[in-house]
């Protein structure tokens, strides 16, 4: 594949997000749903943030050393804008779903009790992550289709 520096950068960010999500959410969501505290997941959260930073730095250093860093051009910016537009919708849908989830669990008789504020925070982080994933995948889709 003939990839520009910006497209390679997007692939690296996608790798970082996928790896960090895989390390964090399968561990954090069940833990908090079962009554765990923020301090219980804090070490994992710090670890995941470090993983993201390391992957981004190492990956971008390698691609910059191999083919030289290039600034984004009009095509990169157009794809980025289109992808950000879609990711905004994805984030909005996520927030609506989380809000509906809270309302239903708070008001409907017989439903489980409302989720804790910590669990809601992790849901919001998940919505942000899915939104970012949708942005990166959309960018890659545009790069591949218009290659």
């Amino acid at each position: 594949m003939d990839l520009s520096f910006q497209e390679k950068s997007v692939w690296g960010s996608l790798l970082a997000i996928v790896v960090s999500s895989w390390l964090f959410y399968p561990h954090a969501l069940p833990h908090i749903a079962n009554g765990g505290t923020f301090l219980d997941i804090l070490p994992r959260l710090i670890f995941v943030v470090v993983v993201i930073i390391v992957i981004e730095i190492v990956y971008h250093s390698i691609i910059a050393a191999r083919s030289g860093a290039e600034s984004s051009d009009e095509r990169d910016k157009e794809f980025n804008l289109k992808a950000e537009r879609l990711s905004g919708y994805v984030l909005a849908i996520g927030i609506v779903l989380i809000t509906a989830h809270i309302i239903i669990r708070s008001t409907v008789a017989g439903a489980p009790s409302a989720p804790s504020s910590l669990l809601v925070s992790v849901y919001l982080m998940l919505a942000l992550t899915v939104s970012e994933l949708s942005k990166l995948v959309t960018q890659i889709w545009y790069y591949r289709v218009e290659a």
Partner: protein
Amino acid sequence: MAKTRVKNNIRKLRFAHGEMTQQQLADEVGVTRQTIVAIEKEKYSPSLDAAFRIAIALDEPFAMVFSYDTAE
């Protein structure tokens, strides 16, 4: 994705212009080589600014480089 309706003769004009490479044209225009490839394949429509810069880099009138397919 379907080809754009903005047609061009960039590939032919590059060779007529001293066999200019895609990278040389990209450097002169200020875009990446991959963007020039996408424009040449008519998969990406450049901005008006980039289109003029391509015509200037190829030392050709704008209408010699780009045209618009009006067929439905």
